[in-house]
């Protein structure tokens, strides 16, 4: 029950975010908006696929990881968005960003003890890239983008808490923190959209 509520909340939020960003990408004709649309769209499609697979087959997909590919792609588009935005400004070297791969890599090794080596390596690499870009942007990026970078970092840490909780808590009860963290991720994604909207408000048409 709680799992379904969590999944549906996430699908609705991601669906709204995808439609809004798609509309913006078309009206603004901006590549940055397009990348953020693909971020939300890929996350939405991955979650929808996962939910439908579970609904009609009664088990999670385990042969080819289509949903996982979609989520990796969404991380990649978020990274591309942050990188493209950060590249607009000359950013000096920022050593603190290297703490991110240490954190993601360390947790990645912990997750690998539960299986799935390749997917954990891919997740750790992509999440590290996102986190590093967010820290870099936070350190010396534009003022309007700072809230976006903060929300990205919140998303980064929430994702890691989610994966950690899925390793520790395996029950499907309402007391499992996994579901609440997942709902928080959905909220953080929605908040991110609001900040992106503000940051790209004056984005010049490309």
């Amino acid at each position, binding site marked *: 029950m709680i799992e379904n509520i969590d999944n549906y909340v996430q699908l609705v939020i991601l669906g709204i975010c995808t439609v809004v960003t*798609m509309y913006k990408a*078309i*009206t603004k*004709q901006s*590549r940055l908006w*397009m*990348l953020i649309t*693909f971020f939300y*769209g*890929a996350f939405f*499609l*991955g979650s*929808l*696929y996962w939910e*439908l*697979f579970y609904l*009609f*087959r009664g088990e999670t*997909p385990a*042969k*080819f*990881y*289509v*949903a996982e*590919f*979609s989520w*990796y*792609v969404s991380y*990649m*588009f978020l990274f*591309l968005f942050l990188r*493209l935005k950060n590249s607009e400004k000359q950013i000096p070297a920022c050593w603190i960003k290297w703490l991110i791969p240490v954190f993601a890599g360390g947790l990645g090794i912990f997750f690998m003890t539960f299986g799935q080596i390749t997917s954990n390596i891919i997740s750790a690499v992509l999440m590290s890239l996102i986190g590093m870009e967010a820290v870099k942007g936070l350190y010396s990026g534009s003022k309007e983008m700072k809230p976006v970078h903060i929300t990205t970092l919140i998303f980064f840490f929430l994702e890691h808490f989610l994966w950690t909780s899925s390793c520790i808590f395996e029950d499907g009860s309402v007391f499992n923190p996994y579901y609440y963290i997942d709902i928080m991720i959905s909220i953080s994604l929605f908040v991110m959209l609001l900040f992106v909207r503000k940051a790209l408000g004056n984005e010049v*048409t490309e």
Partner: protein
Amino acid sequence: MNYIENIYICIAAPILVAILAMSGANSNSDDDKAVIAGSNRKRVMIFLLVGMTICLLSSYISTYFALVLDADRQEATWEITPLVEEVMKFFPILFYILVFEPEKREESAVNILAVAVGFATLENICYLTANGAEDIVLLAVRGFGTGVMHVVCGELVYIGFVFLWDEFWLRFAGISGLISLAATYHAIYNILVSQDGFVAWIGYLVPMVTALLMLYLRRRMSRIKNKLQPE
């Protein structure tokens, strides 16, 4: 038992003959426009044939993966086939753009739609031979559904060629990302249409609605572009 090779030969043969017949058709013409139009028509025919060939090869590769991963029919359709098909459909266009280096990349990328149509045609014919042709309504909906779904997936990858080609890292990451996105969309379609009744109908309608939305967005985009152009 579905003899896909036999069907392929039967359908591909007339297209191949047409391509060969078109080869020298406009070469002696002095009119440049006629030559260009002729080569465009020939190219579309070639990509149509390539799409059918890709459909045949995809079925081999999907079957191989299904055997290796010990997947049942449903798992193969929902998990393996979409990714294999979308990756395979992309290769001919990538080959064409990298090897022939056409001047107008965007126009060349449109050929991905011809590949998609060729692919969907052979797939639909195989479905017909396996399931019969009695129910006209279902076949019409399936014909449009599958055909449009492949075109929508092709259009998704086409976006990458048009908007994300400028820088190497953006090109590589963007297009591979869009292929994966197309594969997930394809997989969702496969899940829905493999159900019975209402859910299957929703599945068939999803690509049509997406295609209409894409058409509307494209028109809106060109309208905005025209407005932004200085008079």
